[in-house]
């Protein structure tokens, strides 16, 4: 085979593969938008679902998803911030650094369904909290913890040592140094991580389907220990009655709403990342 022929064959396979990938991506987006928009209406967004979800809207599903995500954010953000600061400012031993790294990456690698089983055993049964949105929030918080820790840690780590030394030479205590120079950056970086984490958390089904959600007849929860309904579990239930066109129609509508929520989080994270990457010390 001549060199030129080889080169052309190779280029051909690159174009074919890229065409396949791009066609697939366009197919996904156009399907989601096309099918979703035709199911969308003001009434769909603001009314309660009925008839196992095949009729009515998704108002309480949206509320439930937002509630789960918000509680996950409130629980995990301070925890992640603390760990990121401890990791960068206090831990000096290499061995301990390696252990924390391994644990963070392990936590990040745990399959989402395992979080669901853990939540079912520990929170629902051992602590006897029952199926409730609060348990769902805790589990999603644990799931997004590594993302926030790493993102916050990276932005703290990019602060030059001279900043810390200057602050310390003014006679500030260790915590004052952290409070004035480290924490503002930690919060900035952590917030970007939080947005990435929430984009993932709001779409997760497997961790919450045993522990936080009920399918029908759920409205706004009156206490911490009541189940909610959420968009992903709603889509799951509707996908299982896919032979019913009305249910499928509602599933597409719910998917579009879910995708929009996911993209709001991930696009804001992307924008923040581009903005903060311009900061130079």
């Amino acid at each position: 085979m001549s060199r030129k022929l080889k080169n052309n064959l190779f280029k051909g396979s690159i174009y074919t593969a890229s065409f396949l990938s791009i066609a697939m991506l366009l197919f996904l987006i156009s399907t989601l938008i096309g099918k979703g928009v035709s199911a969308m209406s003001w009434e769909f967004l603001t009314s309660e679902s009925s008839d196992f979800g095949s009729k009515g809207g998704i108002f309480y599903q949206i509320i439930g998803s937002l509630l789960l995500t918000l509680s996950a954010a409130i629980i995990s953000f301070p925890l992640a911030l603390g760990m990121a600061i401890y990791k960068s400012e206090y831990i000096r031993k290499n061995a301990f650094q390696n252990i924390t790294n391994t644990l963070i990456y392990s936590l990040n690698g745990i399959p989402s369904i395992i979080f669901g089983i853990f939540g079912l055993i520990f929170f629902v049964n051992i602590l006897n909290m029952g199926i409730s949105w609060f348990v769902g929030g805790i589990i999603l918080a644990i799931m997004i913890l590594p993302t926030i820790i790493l993102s916050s840690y990276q932005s703290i780590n990019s602060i030059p040592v001279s900043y810390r030394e200057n602050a310390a030479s003014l006679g500030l205590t260790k915590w004052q140094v952290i409070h004035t120079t480290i924490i503002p950056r930690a919060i900035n970086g952590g917030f970007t991580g939080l947005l990435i984490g929430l984009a993932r958390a709001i779409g997760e089904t497997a961790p919450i389907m045993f522990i936080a959600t009920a399918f029908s007849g759920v409205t706004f929860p009156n206490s911490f220990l009541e189940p909610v309904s959420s968009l992903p579990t709603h889509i799951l239930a509707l996908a299982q009655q896919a032979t019913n066109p009305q249910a499928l129609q509602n599933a597409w509508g719910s998917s579009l709403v879910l995708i929009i929520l996911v993209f709001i989080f991930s696009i804001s994270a992307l924008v923040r990342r581009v903005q903060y990457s311009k900061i130079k010390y």
Partner: protein
Amino acid sequence: MLAFQNKIGKGYVIASTYVSIAITLLIFIILFWYSFEAFKEIGWDLFTRNWNPATEEYGMLSMLYGTLMVTGIALLIAVPVGILTAIFTSEIIPKQYRLYIKSAIELLAGIPSIIYGLIGIAFFSTWISSWFDLASGRTLLTAGFLLAIMILPTIITLSDDAFFNIPKKYREASKGLGLYTYEVLQKTIWPLAKKNIAGAVLLALGRALGETMAVMLLVGSIDKIPDPFYQVTSPGQTITSKLGREVGESAFGSLHFSALNAIGFLLLLLVITLTIFTQIYFRKKQEVL
């Protein structure tokens, strides 16, 4: 007062670190503890073919087979297509468009798996059933195909980074020798990039092994190994789809529940080993460069 503040601050960061570490360890301990009964009672019979809670038979072989098969199909499709597309985005299209395409691909990586499941049910399962003339389109092949699409963005974007981070001078030097694009890539770029690409594939593999919702909706959920074993157009079951379908139905504390925990624990071990391996592999590589 200052010393006091110092102490509170230190207390807060130490506490959050140990709470995070404790939670991570707790997940492993709880999962192991609740699968212990199954390991003790069932033992090596876990690695048999039949799963039937009514007769207290708990063999996970068909699920292990399903997991490996579905993941294998996904990688077989996604790795070549992904790497070739990454070459397109990093080497061929003009630089100023690269960022837009990359951002679009990263956004697609964020589409929740349940939505992929819905698309799979609405389209892919009907396509597969008409192409192969099957009664039901929910097969190992369908799940593998869908999984390939799900991990494609991960492979593309990480391989693209791997190619793009190689300094321009290598390409220029090779082109200066009169090599074709193919030869530049094969002789110069690929040897430098292949370690990072292997990392990308390992990461995608970890994600594929643990993927639940889309696979659960499309794999068919029948605990059997097809005969012959490469007949991928028949329904099967993966570890994750089994867990997704049955954990809600099993009684807490029963042997059935414990057996489900046991297969979950084995999956966890598999994925975590892979994760730690990837991490060590990347760390070593950074030292070399």
